[in-house]
């Protein structure tokens, strides 16, 4: 299932995830986007996802470090660590906090992987009763995640999703091979690439910010000492009911599309405090306030893979990029991937499990030196982000036009960032546009307009309406850095 070179690539991915996860502002979607060209160049899905999933799975583990040591969360999914992790570091227990965070993350990640493996037969049985119209509705459900990714500007988010959908129509029409929006330029016949769009929208604004500020986000953070990592590991296993409870909570919330990492982080912290008998130390440096959120945020990855793979419903920007990678490698979410690529699915389980264990061991062994990693020079980081952005975009079609396209989308990304137009909906629209058009065409061809009256379609339409209503009512639409909104 997992052999050489997959294992080697997985270890490289885990290392990349650890480094980029520690660096605030660089982890999450930006890293995944920068990896896309490499993933497409690799071609073999098992090896490609060993890199991508290996990187993505451990970033939650690694980003605890900057939150605990410097009070600067790697992304919003590590914010709750500021409540107890940072105070622990301030009172000289940084090592204990890191030990607890990394070991809880590892257990949470393993828990999520086991649940993911167990869910595959159930989801396969469910998909057997779905036809093109139902798959179209599931794609629409995926698109409804715009409600989550739009933040507090839903109309702008919907408009951006429409831009993304429209961009998928550039090129030759898939049914009749008639050029659409190509302006007579042969370069556009194959359509636009996810890489150019995602790099322009996400990586370019990061590069601009780094070049502008000339310092890292961690530049003003105070230095801290790290020791007694073992005590933190013992704490994690001492509080095993909390560990398992929050791992289960994280996995369950991860399955529900649209619940972002930051929500899970705070919900798990809230439940940790709520269910604790003695609450007086929370907020002052209680190790349980580190174990609970870290277990939950890492276990969610296994859960979040289920709707992404089975129904093509990505609940976050990271999963939307992952979905884009699936499609780019010719893996269609749903029945195709679940029936024709079973080995790949089970390799995901191993990837999740191994990467989490390796990341925990790696991070625990270098815990004493982590504070130095977060203080890497801005010039080095900016150079790497810039170089990988250029190379990533160029690898799309290896044409000078790739760079022109990158410049265009970089400009768009900067303008959108500047004027608060959410970027993730555009990406989601672009990722799902092709699938939507294909299922729409198939549904009309097979059933005519009556496809809308199929019971499955009606049930799914009601579920979409209910989910959108509840998501907005619960207020989970607040944009998060992890989701890359804004």
């Amino acid at each position: 299932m997992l052999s050489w070179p997959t294992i080697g690539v997985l270890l490289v991915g885990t290392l990349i995830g650890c480094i980029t996860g520690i660096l605030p502002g660089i982890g999450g979607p930006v890293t995944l986007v920068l990896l896309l060209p490499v993933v497409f160049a690799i071609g073999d899905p098992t090896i490609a996802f060993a890199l991508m999933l290996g990187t993505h799975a451990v970033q939650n583990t690694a980003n605890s470090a900057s939150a605990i040591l410097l009070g600067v969360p790697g992304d919003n999914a590590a914010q709750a660590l500021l409540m107890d992790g940072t105070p622990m570091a301030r009172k000289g227990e940084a090592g204990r906090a890191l030990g607890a965070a990394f070991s809880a993350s590892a257990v949470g990640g393993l828990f999520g992987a086991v649940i993911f493996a167990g869910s595959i037969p159930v989801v396969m049985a469910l998909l057997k009763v779905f036809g093109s119209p139902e798959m179209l509705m599931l794609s629409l459900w995926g698109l409804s995640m715009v409600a989550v990714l739009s933040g507090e500007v839903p109309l702008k988010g919907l408009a951006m999703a429409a831009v993304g959908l429209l961009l998928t129509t550039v090129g030759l029409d898939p049914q009749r091979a008639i050029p659409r929006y190509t302006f007579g330029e042969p370069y556009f016949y194959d359509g636009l690439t996810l890489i150019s769009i995602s790099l322009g929208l996400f990586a370019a604004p990061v590069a601009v910010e780094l070049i502008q500020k000339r310092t890292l986000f961690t530049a003003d953070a105070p230095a801290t000492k790290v020791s007694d990592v073992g005590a933190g590991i013992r704490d994690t296993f001492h509080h095993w009911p909390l560990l398992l409870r929050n791992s289960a909570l994280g996995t369950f919330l991860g399955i529900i599309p649209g619940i972002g990492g930051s929500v899970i982080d705070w919900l798990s912290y809230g439940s940790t405090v709520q269910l604790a008998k003695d609450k007086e130390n929370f907020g002052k440096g209680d190790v349980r306030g580190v174990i609970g959120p870290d277990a939950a945020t890492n276990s969610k990855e296994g859960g979040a893979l289920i709707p992404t793979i089975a129904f093509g419903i990505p609940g976050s920007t990271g999963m939307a990029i992952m979905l884009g990678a699936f499609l780019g490698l010719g893996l269609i979410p749903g029945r195709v991937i679940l029936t024709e690529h079973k080995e790949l699915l089970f390799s995901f389980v191993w990837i999740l499990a191994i990467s989490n264990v390796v990341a925990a061991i790696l991070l625990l062994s270098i815990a004493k030196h982590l504070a130095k990693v977060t203080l890497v020079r801005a010039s080095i980081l900016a150079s790497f982000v810039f170089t990988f952005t250029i190379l990533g975009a160029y690898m799309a079609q290896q044409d000078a036009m790739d760079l022109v396209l990158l410049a265009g989308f970089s400009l768009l990304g900067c303008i959108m960032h500047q004027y608060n137009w959410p970027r993730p909906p555009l990406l989601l629209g672009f990722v799902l546009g092709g699938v939507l058009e294909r299922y729409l065409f198939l549904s009309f061809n097979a059933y005519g307009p009556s496809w809308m009256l199929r019971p499955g379609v009606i049930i799914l339409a009601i579920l979409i309406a209910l989910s959108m209503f509840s998501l907005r009512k619960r207020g989970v639409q607040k944009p998060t850095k992890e989701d890359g909104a804004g």
Partner: protein
Amino acid sequence: MGALVFNIFLVVVFGGAVIETFGWRQEVSMFPRVVASLGLLMVTGQLVIELWNRRRVAHPAAGASSAEGEADAPVRIGRQGAAWLFAGLFCIVLLGVPVGVPLFVVLLARYRFDEGWPLAIGLAATAVFLILAIFGGVFGAMWADPLLLTLFSASPTTENGSQASKVRC
């Protein structure tokens, strides 16, 4: 003002996209026409909201609060950062990836980040290694001729005429 200009730009884009679909066959135009029409509706709605908010901010007596006026305040992308990025992209299109990227990395490190020459050259060398050894050697990337060379040389064009040739590294 910039926000307004961007919004108007989107209205024009969606409007143009809708008009473009009228020249196509029904089955080809259905999806883009629906999407572009919905997009047009949404960006027009957003434009109306934007104009309405501006009017309220301009005339506080009409009921606008300062908080509402600030809700959509721009994030401020640094102009110097953006200028460096786009100058870099232009430099790479002009000189090609293998020359343009290392050159830009040196200039960036030396003159924007005020790093010493050793680090600047080290970063450029890393970029060269990534370009030639990893992306060129391992992934087999072919580097398009730089725009400068295409403009000033009489190289034969390829079938699509967009570039002269590609050099395998």
